[in-house]
């Protein structure tokens, strides 16, 4: 897909399991994806499909136990992050890879000022002198469109609105000039108009800073606006991947198709929405064969027994479904 040196992050066959006394929840069950330089990649799926756990695993943030990385590699600029010790990972987090989480109200520490929190990555990773830290913090805040940054530095998180807190989170993620930003549902808790502002901001910063972006969301509307390429996840696996037009105009996997058809919009007025029957399976009790087969309108006998391999259609476009056709890709894990 890309020349190897153009790939910032490559995840291969990642498996993350959570063990309890009597069951194993296979939250991420063999996931492959890659992100090119300056590329925006969306990981999309419903809650519980494993998208957040995949991102946490990339950053070495899965609590172990109960979690367990059961296999795979996470290559950041060719270096496997899963082999690294904590100290080395600490160097990557915040410096090589920036993070933005869903809930700005819980991700910011309520007892420290905005200034102290923005300064932290600058102090730890870049060991800048204090005067320069302040200068950089101000610059970062104005980069993300916060008015009167001098005053804001002394404010506590509760004094800011949701949109402003998310801007602060983005400023912190940007602080050390990372090559990749992982944003996990950064706009889900925000109003649509604020969401539009944040999406534009991310887009602008990505272009001016030349970063790659892994954007995790369940909102297909947002995906259609920002993504270059998309990975669709279901029950811990990637079921389809492609360029954004391929996914929205010519999706091949029945799950992706059903998701798109189930979206309400005013053009569908008067027609019945095509809902997907049933619910997402529990990660500890996934059905045999294709995990989507009990809900799939096109399932055939083979879907019940055999876990489908990834099949390619065009450049970038591949799906994990025997009914969709395509040529088999052997180099995809599982």
């Amino acid at each position, binding site marked *: 897909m890309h020349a190897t040196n153009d790939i910032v992050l490559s995840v291969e066959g990642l498996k993350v399991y959570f063990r309890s006394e009597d069951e194993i929840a296979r939250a991420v069950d063999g996931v492959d994806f890659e992100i090119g330089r300056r590329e925006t990649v969306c990981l999309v799926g419903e809650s519980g499909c494993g998208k957040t756990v995949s991102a946490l695993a990339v950053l070495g943030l899965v609590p172990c136990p109960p979690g367990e990385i059961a296999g795979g590699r996470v290559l950041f600029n060719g270096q496997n992050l899963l082999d690294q010790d904590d100290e080395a990972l600490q160097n990557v987090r915040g410096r090589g890879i920036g993070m933005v989480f869903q809930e700005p109200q819980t991700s910011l520490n309520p007892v420290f000022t905005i200034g102290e929190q923005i300064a932290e990555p600058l102090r730890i990773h870049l060991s800048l002198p204090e005067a320069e830290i302040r200068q950089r913090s101000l610059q970062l805040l104005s980069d993300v469109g916060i008015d009167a940054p001098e005053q804001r530095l002394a404010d506590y998180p509760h004094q800011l609105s949701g949109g402003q807190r998310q801007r602060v989170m983005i400023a912190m993620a940007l602080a050390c000039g990372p090559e990749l930003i992982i944003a996990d549902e950064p706009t889900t808790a925000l109003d*649509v*108009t604020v969401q*539009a502002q944040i999406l534009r901001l991310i887009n602008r910063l990505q272009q001016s800073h030349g970063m790659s972006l892994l954007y995790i969301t369940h909102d297909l509307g947002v995906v259609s606006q920002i993504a270059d390429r998309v990975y669709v996840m279901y029950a811990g696996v990637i079921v389809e991947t492609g360029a954004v037009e391929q996914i929205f105009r010519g999706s091949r996997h029945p799950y992706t198709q059903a998701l798109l058809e189930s979206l*309400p919009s*005013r053009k569908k*007025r008067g027609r019945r929405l095509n809902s997907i029957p049933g619910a997402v399976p529990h990660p500890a009790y996934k059905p045999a064969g294709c995990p989507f087969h009990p809900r799939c309108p096109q399932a055939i006998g083979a879907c019940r027994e055999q876990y489908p391999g990834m099949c390619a259609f065009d450049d970038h476009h591949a799906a994990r479904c025997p009914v969709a056709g395509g040529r088999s890709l052997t180099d995809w894990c599982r």
Partner: protein
Amino acid sequence: MEPESTQTTDILRIEGLKKHFPIRRGLFQRTVGWVRAVENVSLALAGGKTLGLVGESGCGKTTVARMILNLLPADDGRILYNGVDICGLSDKDMQPFRKEIQIVFQDPYGSLNPRMTVGQTLGEGLRMAGIRGRRPAQERLEHLLELVGMAPAAADRYPHEFSGGQRQRIGIARALSVEPSLVICDEPVSALDVSIQAQIINLLKDLQDRLGLSYLFISHDLNVVGYLCHHVAVMYKGQIMEYAPAEEMFENPLHPYTHVLLAAVPDPETGKKVATEAVGGEPAEVVAAFPEGCRFQSKCPERDDRCRLFGGDLTKAGAGHYVRCWRK
């Protein structure tokens, strides 16, 4: 100016509804100001139809809903249910109307009692509806569960045994247990996954067709509103900015705020990129600024000096189309 419905059979008419909350500070909790949460709100909902009430968080949508249910006293205004003013009724006088007006909440986890089985939860409503005796209650319970697409066996189970979508079905069944005519749906699908959302939206539509229900549908999701609603009211900082039939609202929006709101909605069908320089109201400002004149003036791309002086009334701009902007 109050919106007049095209039909004379309005199940719900709200006229000049007002609610101000005091801002209290200091040791003695002195009132230092007022949040004008709902200001002169007028709406009409025709029987068997769906009225969408849209706006951002903090704009006063839920406050309106709570006043309709008489869970919160209104400062001023009238709430006419089938022509009877229910605003400010005592608990006792409100009792018959509680059977008529029900609500479905956003959070299907928080709004069900975890210690009660589904059967017990629904049974409370059945008793309120005056259904006595084991046999009739049992039959009615099964009928309710069937209405929302659940098996009779669900009656003996507890809320935690169900998924979010199933719990929302239970929430809907509970609302229906007293056979209401008007159901207020406060963000009923916002907490649900995409594939489950469509199930619940279809269910709400089926129930409307089957039982002739009227819905006041409160949502921030314009895609859902555009799909489901017959009329739409756009609310901003406690005021209705625009009110129109749904088609008209989406095809021919007049208020600058409606434009901003529509431009901000991601539409997967067109996949248009985020380009329009939209402006937004951030929730923190809700408490602070309720300026004189138009409440949208600070964010409005079309503002000029006169917007500071008058916000304008809700004025007729077309067939059933009302807008609060002096230029329109």
